[in-house]
């Protein structure tokens, strides 16, 4: 029956008529449900990436795996562009600017934050992080579990200190997961690329000193980067809110440097 109405509705809508049905009585007028055209969504996504817009009509059965993966990567990248990348070049200055702009800008951001809830990016980042740190040895599982635990702790902290925001725990896990990206980069540098340089440089004392200092500098930079990003995106302004997040991220950064 519904499909019948839908058919009628489509016909009438095509003619631009308003549709009202009376079920044998004059006082009973029921407007049938229609699926709205996607014009609103299209307007909203007007300036967004094409990859993101495509994901609205996601169907993975009739496309190649490569295409699906590519779309996911583009999807993650487009979010990173908004959350994490902007804070790199001038770190805290950018962060302050971001806070200022945000205050004057949208209040709708508050409610839309929970829409951004995918665990795909955090999973990818944590797998990469654990893989780099453990060198694919037995340490992987413990690093994997403890990384998720750290994300959970960060999300719980945010949920507890910001009870007035309507953001769910999972959304906070997702947001914090995105901010792990600098940690992954730091791990890649200090666990994969710098050891290669160690091999080339051998046991020369100055090479060891410089590379060790580089490790520390990379750790500090990436830690500041991810803390700035997570503070901006969760709108944490005071030290009370930022310090626990920084402590958790420091734990992860430390593991990647020292192990």
């Amino acid at each position: 029956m519904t499909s019948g109405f839908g058919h009628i509705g489509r016909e009438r809508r095509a003619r631009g008529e308003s549709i009202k049905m009376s079920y044998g009585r004059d006082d009973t007028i029921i407007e049938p449900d229609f699926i709205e055209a996607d014009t609103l969504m299209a307007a909203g996504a007007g300036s967004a990436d094409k990859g993101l817009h495509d994901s609205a009509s996601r169907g993975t059965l009739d496309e190649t795996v490569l295409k699906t993966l590519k779309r996911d990567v583009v999807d993650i990248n487009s979010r990173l562009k908004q959350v994490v990348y902007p804070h790199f070049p001038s770190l805290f200055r950018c962060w302050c600017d971001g806070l200022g702009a945000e205050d004057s800008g949208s209040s709708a951001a508050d409610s839309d934050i929970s829409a951004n809830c995918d665990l795909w990016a955090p999973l990818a980042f944590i797998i990469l992080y654990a893989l780099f740190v453990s060198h694919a040895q037995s340490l992987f599982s413990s690093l994997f579990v403890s990384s998720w635990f750290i994300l959970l702790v960060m999300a719980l902290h945010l949920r507890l200190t910001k009870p007035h925001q309507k953001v769910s725990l999972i959304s906070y896990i997702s947001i914090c997961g995105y901010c792990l990206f600098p940690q992954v980069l730091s791990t890649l540098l200090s666990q994969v690329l710098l050891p290669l340089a160690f091999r080339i440089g051998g046991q020369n004392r100055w090479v060891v000193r410089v590379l060790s200092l580089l490790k520390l500098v990379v750790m500090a930079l990436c830690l500041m980067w991810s803390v700035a990003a997570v503070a901006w995106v969760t709108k944490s302004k005071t030290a009370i809110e930022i310090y626990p997040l920084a402590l958790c991220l420091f734990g992860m950064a430390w593991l990647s440097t020292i192990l």
Partner: protein
Amino acid sequence: MPSNNSSFLDIDDDLEGVDDFAGETNPFDDATVPDRPSMNKSKAGEGNGFYGTADSKGESAPLQGQMDPPAYDQVIGENTNENGGRDGLRPGLINYYSRYFQLNLTQFKKRLSAVMTFRNDHNAGDNDNDCDLYGAVWITATVVMINFTMSGGLSFIINEVIKGTRAGGDVDRASQFKKLLHSIWLFYGYTFGVPFITMQVLQRDEHSERNRSFKSVPELISVYGYSNLIWIPVCVILNILDMSKRLRTVQAIQWAIVALGWAQSSYFLKSQMSKNNGEDGETQAGGKLSLSVIVAIALHALFCLLFRFIIF
């Protein structure tokens, strides 16, 4: 009854079916999730924002109303009439605990300075905002993190940065992780477990009039949490001294520092647990300690011994 109207939209077919209920109210009307105002707004201007793009995912938009957790104010508001607002929430809810994490920076600084100066202003007036678990959780986390990172960090700096020798696989990572695990169970166990025992002891003490009356266990956990503040400098110094552990004098100094930490934190615990009504309190208590406070300090001494033997 057949209808006179010949329109094909008039579907009263005299058979049993959905059209029989056309005159009744829709029972699903109550369950309708109200549209969020943000969903109707045009996102054209916010396309570059993090949230704007999130909204452009068509599939997530209809779920928004259902996925959101209940707002804090909403939950609080629902319970206001029953049991007086926040107290009415059940302990299983996250919002129940969020009241213990609501504090601002000045409040926090004031409490931290109160630990160092042994100031006891619990009887000054409002006790409502006096209790937070933020300090207990994150001061303890800081202590644990120092224990975990400092020894490894120091050896990294000394060996690789200063001496320029690469330790490679010789680093004693097992001891670092042992320190981490032992610190976690010891400090969190003590901060969040022992207050339950102390609370019982304080309540059953026959000289309970000498003690400050704690309304709830979280209040006592808060006191224990802030008393952990002294372990931050103590752990830093102990970790530095740990680099040359074999020397006897160093060990003696370590013992002395742990004893200092014990003295400071137990004095703080004592000052918090005993009643302090200014001059009146001093004359009543006469400087004597009640048995329950002595038990608490003895437990604290046991904790300090465990800390010394297990972690260092």
